Protein backbone atom coordinates (compact mmCIF):
# COMPACT_ATOMS: atom_id res chain seq x y z
CA UNK A 1 0.00 0.00 0.00
CA UNK A 2 0.97 3.63 0.05
CA UNK A 3 1.36 6.26 -2.64
CA UNK A 4 2.84 5.07 -5.92
CA UNK A 5 3.09 8.25 -7.99
CA UNK A 6 4.25 11.77 -7.14
CA UNK A 7 3.51 14.38 -9.79
CA UNK A 8 3.65 18.15 -9.54
CA UNK A 9 5.43 21.48 -9.63
CA UNK A 10 8.26 22.09 -7.14
CA UNK A 11 8.01 24.30 -4.07
CA UNK A 12 10.92 25.23 -1.81
CA UNK A 13 8.76 24.40 1.22
CA UNK A 14 9.04 20.71 0.32
CA UNK A 15 12.42 20.64 -1.42
CA UNK A 16 13.77 17.80 0.75
CA UNK A 17 10.71 15.67 0.02
CA UNK A 18 11.20 16.29 -3.70
CA UNK A 19 14.95 15.57 -3.55
CA UNK A 20 14.18 12.22 -1.92
CA UNK A 21 11.62 11.48 -4.63
CA UNK A 22 14.15 12.28 -7.37
CA UNK A 23 16.69 9.91 -5.81
CA UNK A 24 14.04 7.19 -5.70
CA UNK A 25 12.97 8.01 -9.30
CA UNK A 26 9.37 8.46 -8.27
CA UNK A 27 8.85 12.11 -9.23
CA UNK A 28 7.35 13.55 -12.40
CA UNK A 29 7.53 17.30 -12.92
CA UNK A 30 4.87 19.07 -14.96
CA UNK A 31 4.61 22.55 -16.42
CA UNK A 32 1.55 23.52 -14.39
CA UNK A 33 -0.34 22.11 -11.44
CA UNK A 34 -3.51 21.37 -13.43
CA UNK A 35 -1.45 19.22 -15.73
CA UNK A 36 -0.19 17.25 -12.72
CA UNK A 37 -3.77 16.75 -11.51
CA UNK A 38 -4.72 15.49 -14.98
CA UNK A 39 -1.84 12.98 -15.08
CA UNK A 40 -2.59 11.77 -11.55
CA UNK A 41 -6.25 11.40 -12.52
CA UNK A 42 -5.20 9.03 -15.32
CA UNK A 43 -3.07 7.10 -12.84
CA UNK A 44 -5.82 6.98 -10.21
CA UNK A 45 -8.30 5.74 -12.85
CA UNK A 46 -5.79 2.92 -13.41
CA UNK A 47 -6.07 2.03 -9.72
CA UNK A 48 -2.80 3.56 -8.49
CA UNK A 49 -2.66 5.79 -5.40
CA UNK A 50 -1.25 9.13 -6.56
CA UNK A 51 -0.17 12.43 -5.03
CA UNK A 52 0.03 15.92 -6.56
CA UNK A 53 2.54 18.29 -4.97
CA UNK A 54 2.37 22.04 -5.42
CA UNK A 55 2.79 25.44 -3.84
CA UNK A 56 -0.37 27.22 -2.72
CA UNK A 57 -0.03 29.56 -5.73
CA UNK A 58 -0.49 26.42 -7.82
CA UNK A 59 -3.38 25.32 -5.66
CA UNK A 60 -5.07 28.60 -6.57
CA UNK A 61 -4.38 27.84 -10.25
CA UNK A 62 -6.10 24.49 -9.82
CA UNK A 63 -9.45 25.44 -8.29
CA UNK A 64 -11.52 24.82 -11.42
CA UNK A 65 -9.73 21.53 -12.13
CA UNK A 66 -10.46 20.37 -8.58
CA UNK A 67 -14.17 21.22 -8.82
CA UNK A 68 -14.82 20.15 -12.44
CA UNK A 69 -12.64 17.02 -12.55
CA UNK A 70 -11.43 15.69 -9.18
CA UNK A 71 -14.56 16.41 -7.16
CA UNK A 72 -17.03 15.92 -10.03
CA UNK A 73 -15.82 12.38 -10.80
CA UNK A 74 -14.73 11.64 -7.21
CA UNK A 75 -11.12 10.92 -8.12
CA UNK A 76 -9.07 9.81 -5.11
CA UNK A 77 -5.99 12.05 -4.91
CA UNK A 78 -3.72 13.33 -2.18
CA UNK A 79 -2.72 16.98 -2.58
CA UNK A 80 0.48 18.07 -0.86
CA UNK A 81 0.37 21.85 -0.67
CA UNK A 82 3.21 24.13 0.43
CA UNK A 83 1.82 26.99 2.52
CA UNK A 84 3.66 30.10 1.40
CA UNK A 85 2.63 33.25 3.20
CA UNK A 86 2.26 31.33 6.44
CA UNK A 87 4.86 33.60 8.04
CA UNK A 88 4.10 37.29 8.12
CA UNK A 89 7.56 38.09 6.74
CA UNK A 90 7.39 35.69 3.75
CA UNK A 91 7.84 37.28 0.29
CA UNK A 92 5.06 39.76 -0.61
CA UNK A 93 3.65 37.79 -3.56
CA UNK A 94 2.59 35.03 -1.15
CA UNK A 95 0.87 37.21 1.42
CA UNK A 96 -2.69 37.23 0.10
CA UNK A 97 -2.89 33.60 -0.99
CA UNK A 98 -1.29 32.50 2.31
CA UNK A 99 -4.00 34.37 4.17
CA UNK A 100 -7.00 33.01 2.25
CA UNK A 101 -5.69 29.46 1.81
CA UNK A 102 -7.55 27.92 4.80
CA UNK A 103 -10.81 29.47 3.55
CA UNK A 104 -10.24 28.22 0.00
CA UNK A 105 -9.65 24.67 1.21
CA UNK A 106 -12.75 24.89 3.38
CA UNK A 107 -14.88 26.32 0.52
CA UNK A 108 -13.87 23.42 -1.69
CA UNK A 109 -14.83 20.91 1.05
CA UNK A 110 -11.40 19.30 0.96
CA UNK A 111 -10.54 17.53 4.19
CA UNK A 112 -7.02 18.48 5.18
CA UNK A 113 -4.34 18.16 7.86
CA UNK A 114 -1.48 20.54 8.61
CA UNK A 115 1.81 18.69 8.97
CA UNK A 116 4.31 19.38 11.73
CA UNK A 117 7.32 17.59 13.18
CA UNK A 118 5.24 15.59 15.64
CA UNK A 119 2.14 14.66 13.63
CA UNK A 120 3.45 14.12 10.10
CA UNK A 121 3.60 10.35 10.28
CA UNK A 122 0.08 10.03 11.69
CA UNK A 123 -1.26 12.48 9.10
CA UNK A 124 0.41 10.68 6.21
CA UNK A 125 -1.30 7.47 7.36
CA UNK A 126 -4.55 9.45 7.51
CA UNK A 127 -4.05 10.64 3.90
CA UNK A 128 -3.28 7.14 2.63
CA UNK A 129 -6.40 5.84 4.36
CA UNK A 130 -8.54 8.58 2.76
CA UNK A 131 -7.03 7.72 -0.60
CA UNK A 132 -7.77 4.01 -0.26
CA UNK A 133 -11.37 4.95 0.56
CA UNK A 134 -11.60 6.84 -2.72
CA UNK A 135 -11.53 10.32 -1.22
CA UNK A 136 -9.75 13.55 -2.07
CA UNK A 137 -7.67 15.01 0.76
CA UNK A 138 -4.86 17.50 1.33
CA UNK A 139 -1.73 17.63 3.45
CA UNK A 140 -0.49 21.14 4.14
CA UNK A 141 3.20 21.89 4.70
CA UNK A 142 3.87 25.22 6.38
CA UNK A 143 6.70 27.39 5.10
CA UNK A 144 8.01 28.18 8.58
CA UNK A 145 11.44 29.39 7.49
CA UNK A 146 12.64 32.39 5.52
CA UNK A 147 15.68 32.25 3.29
Amino acid at each position, binding site marked *: MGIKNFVGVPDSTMKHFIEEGIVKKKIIFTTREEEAI*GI*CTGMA*LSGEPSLVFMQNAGFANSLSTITSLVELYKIPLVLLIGWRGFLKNDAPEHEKIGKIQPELIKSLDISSRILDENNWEKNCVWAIKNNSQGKLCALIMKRDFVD
Partner: protein
Amino acid sequence: MIRKQAMKQIVNSVDTEIIVSANGYISRDLFNVKDQQENFYMIGSMGLASSIGLGLAMKNPKKQIFVFDGDGNILMNLGSLTTIGSIRPKNFVHVIFDNSSHESTGGQPTNSNLVKIDEIAKDCNYNKVFLIKTNIELKKILLKIKKIDGPIMILIKIKKGGNIGNRISIKPEKIKERFMNTLK
Protein backbone atom coordinates in the same frame (compact mmCIF):
# COMPACT_ATOMS: atom_id res chain seq x y z
CA MET B 1 -14.62 16.83 -43.52
CA ILE B 2 -16.47 17.66 -40.32
CA ARG B 3 -15.58 16.38 -36.87
CA LYS B 4 -18.28 13.75 -36.65
CA GLN B 5 -17.20 12.13 -39.95
CA ALA B 6 -13.56 11.99 -38.90
CA MET B 7 -14.50 10.71 -35.46
CA LYS B 8 -16.69 7.92 -36.88
CA GLN B 9 -13.84 6.82 -39.10
CA ILE B 10 -11.40 6.66 -36.19
CA VAL B 11 -13.79 4.96 -33.77
CA ASN B 12 -14.62 2.27 -36.34
CA SER B 13 -10.92 1.67 -36.94
CA VAL B 14 -9.78 1.53 -33.29
CA ASP B 15 -12.67 -0.63 -32.08
CA THR B 16 -12.58 -0.95 -28.29
CA GLU B 17 -9.44 0.98 -27.41
CA ILE B 18 -9.40 3.49 -24.56
CA ILE B 19 -10.49 7.01 -25.55
CA VAL B 20 -10.25 10.16 -23.43
CA SER B 21 -12.31 12.93 -25.00
CA ALA B 22 -12.02 16.67 -24.43
CA ASN B 23 -14.92 18.72 -23.09
CA GLY B 24 -17.57 20.40 -25.21
CA TYR B 25 -18.67 19.17 -28.61
CA ILE B 26 -15.85 16.61 -28.85
CA SER B 27 -17.16 14.53 -25.95
CA ARG B 28 -20.72 15.08 -27.12
CA ASP B 29 -19.89 13.85 -30.60
CA LEU B 30 -18.13 10.78 -29.24
CA PHE B 31 -21.09 9.98 -26.99
CA ASN B 32 -23.44 10.16 -29.98
CA VAL B 33 -21.14 8.37 -32.44
CA LYS B 34 -20.35 5.41 -30.19
CA ASP B 35 -20.96 5.33 -26.48
CA GLN B 36 -18.99 2.59 -24.76
CA GLN B 37 -17.42 2.01 -21.38
CA GLU B 38 -13.93 2.49 -22.84
CA ASN B 39 -14.71 6.21 -23.31
CA PHE B 40 -13.75 8.67 -20.61
CA TYR B 41 -15.77 11.80 -21.31
CA MET B 42 -13.97 14.72 -19.68
CA ILE B 43 -16.89 17.10 -19.39
CA GLY B 44 -15.07 19.86 -17.45
CA SER B 45 -11.41 20.77 -16.83
CA MET B 46 -10.74 22.14 -20.32
CA GLY B 47 -7.26 21.38 -21.63
CA LEU B 48 -6.55 18.30 -19.56
CA ALA B 49 -7.59 15.39 -21.80
CA SER B 50 -4.00 14.92 -22.99
CA SER B 51 -2.73 14.90 -19.40
CA ILE B 52 -5.31 12.33 -18.27
CA GLY B 53 -4.36 10.28 -21.33
CA LEU B 54 -0.67 10.49 -20.41
CA GLY B 55 -1.34 9.14 -16.90
CA LEU B 56 -3.40 6.32 -18.41
CA ALA B 57 -0.78 5.51 -21.05
CA MET B 58 1.98 5.24 -18.43
CA LYS B 59 -0.01 2.85 -16.26
CA ASN B 60 -1.54 0.72 -19.03
CA PRO B 61 1.39 -0.03 -21.35
CA LYS B 62 -0.40 -2.94 -23.04
CA LYS B 63 -3.35 -0.81 -24.15
CA GLN B 64 -3.32 1.88 -26.81
CA ILE B 65 -4.61 5.15 -25.37
CA PHE B 66 -6.36 7.60 -27.70
CA VAL B 67 -6.92 11.24 -26.75
CA PHE B 68 -9.59 13.11 -28.70
CA ASP B 69 -8.52 16.71 -28.31
CA GLY B 70 -9.47 20.03 -29.87
CA ASP B 71 -7.37 22.99 -30.97
CA GLY B 72 -8.81 25.18 -28.20
CA ASN B 73 -8.09 22.45 -25.66
CA ILE B 74 -4.48 21.79 -26.62
CA LEU B 75 -3.69 25.51 -26.90
CA MET B 76 -4.86 25.81 -23.30
CA ASN B 77 -2.38 23.13 -22.14
CA LEU B 78 0.52 23.34 -24.60
CA GLY B 79 2.91 22.47 -21.79
CA SER B 80 1.39 19.01 -21.87
CA LEU B 81 3.14 18.39 -25.22
CA THR B 82 6.52 18.90 -23.53
CA THR B 83 5.69 16.44 -20.75
CA ILE B 84 4.33 13.83 -23.18
CA GLY B 85 7.39 14.32 -25.41
CA SER B 86 9.71 13.87 -22.42
CA ILE B 87 8.08 10.68 -21.13
CA ARG B 88 7.36 9.35 -24.65
CA PRO B 89 4.78 6.64 -23.99
CA LYS B 90 4.71 4.23 -26.95
CA ASN B 91 0.98 3.61 -26.59
CA PHE B 92 -0.14 7.24 -26.77
CA VAL B 93 -2.13 8.50 -29.78
CA HIS B 94 -3.04 12.18 -29.69
CA VAL B 95 -5.82 13.06 -32.13
CA ILE B 96 -6.59 16.75 -32.52
CA PHE B 97 -9.75 17.83 -34.31
CA ASP B 98 -8.71 21.27 -35.46
CA ASN B 99 -11.40 23.63 -36.72
CA SER B 100 -9.53 26.76 -35.57
CA SER B 101 -12.41 27.64 -33.33
CA HIS B 102 -14.08 27.22 -29.99
CA GLU B 103 -17.10 25.67 -31.64
CA SER B 104 -18.80 24.68 -28.38
CA THR B 105 -18.95 28.27 -27.16
CA GLY B 106 -20.22 29.83 -30.39
CA GLY B 107 -17.44 29.36 -32.94
CA GLN B 108 -15.05 32.07 -31.79
CA PRO B 109 -11.63 31.79 -33.48
CA THR B 110 -8.51 30.21 -31.98
CA ASN B 111 -5.00 30.88 -33.25
CA SER B 112 -4.47 27.36 -34.53
CA ASN B 113 -4.42 28.48 -38.19
CA LEU B 114 -1.68 31.02 -37.42
CA VAL B 115 0.70 28.61 -35.68
CA LYS B 116 1.81 25.06 -36.50
CA ILE B 117 0.68 22.68 -33.78
CA ASP B 118 2.13 19.75 -35.75
CA GLU B 119 5.58 21.38 -35.83
CA ILE B 120 5.38 22.12 -32.11
CA ALA B 121 4.61 18.44 -31.45
CA LYS B 122 7.61 17.40 -33.59
CA ASP B 123 9.86 19.74 -31.63
CA CYS B 124 8.46 18.24 -28.43
CA ASN B 125 9.77 14.79 -29.46
CA TYR B 126 6.55 13.16 -30.61
CA ASN B 127 7.66 10.07 -32.50
CA LYS B 128 5.37 10.66 -35.50
CA VAL B 129 3.14 13.58 -36.43
CA PHE B 130 0.56 13.44 -39.23
CA LEU B 131 -1.27 16.42 -40.68
CA ILE B 132 -4.52 15.22 -42.25
CA LYS B 133 -6.98 17.04 -44.50
CA THR B 134 -9.07 14.32 -46.16
CA ASN B 135 -10.90 11.10 -45.29
CA ILE B 136 -8.63 9.15 -47.64
CA GLU B 137 -5.49 10.38 -45.89
CA LEU B 138 -7.05 9.56 -42.53
CA LYS B 139 -7.88 6.02 -43.63
CA LYS B 140 -4.25 5.40 -44.64
CA ILE B 141 -2.86 6.80 -41.40
CA LEU B 142 -5.24 4.77 -39.22
CA LEU B 143 -3.77 1.60 -40.75
CA LYS B 144 -0.24 2.90 -40.43
CA ILE B 145 -0.41 3.80 -36.73
CA LYS B 146 -1.13 0.20 -35.79
CA LYS B 147 2.50 -0.58 -36.60
CA ILE B 148 4.37 2.41 -35.17
CA ASP B 149 5.30 3.54 -31.67
CA GLY B 150 3.97 6.65 -30.00
CA PRO B 151 3.71 9.28 -28.98
CA ILE B 152 1.82 9.87 -32.21
CA MET B 153 -0.10 13.01 -33.13
CA ILE B 154 -2.81 13.04 -35.78
CA LEU B 155 -3.77 16.65 -36.43
CA ILE B 156 -6.97 16.66 -38.48
CA LYS B 157 -8.03 19.88 -40.14
CA ILE B 158 -11.82 19.90 -40.08
CA LYS B 159 -14.63 22.29 -40.91
CA LYS B 160 -17.07 23.63 -38.39
CA GLY B 161 -20.61 22.34 -38.49
CA GLY B 162 -22.77 19.27 -38.31
CA ASN B 163 -25.67 18.49 -36.04
CA ILE B 164 -24.77 18.42 -32.39
CA GLY B 165 -26.42 15.50 -30.72
CA ASN B 166 -27.65 15.03 -27.19
CA ARG B 167 -25.68 15.95 -24.13
CA ILE B 168 -23.99 13.10 -22.29
CA SER B 169 -26.69 11.54 -20.16
CA ILE B 170 -24.41 9.42 -17.96
CA LYS B 171 -23.47 10.80 -14.54
CA PRO B 172 -19.74 11.58 -14.14
CA GLU B 173 -19.29 9.05 -11.35
CA LYS B 174 -20.86 6.36 -13.53
CA ILE B 175 -18.58 7.34 -16.45
CA LYS B 176 -15.66 6.80 -14.09
CA GLU B 177 -16.89 3.50 -12.65
CA ARG B 178 -17.52 1.77 -15.95
CA PHE B 179 -14.30 3.18 -17.40
CA MET B 180 -12.26 1.85 -14.47
CA ASN B 181 -13.86 -1.59 -14.92
CA THR B 182 -12.47 -1.80 -18.45
CA LEU B 183 -8.95 -1.18 -17.15
CA LYS B 184 -9.02 -4.00 -14.60
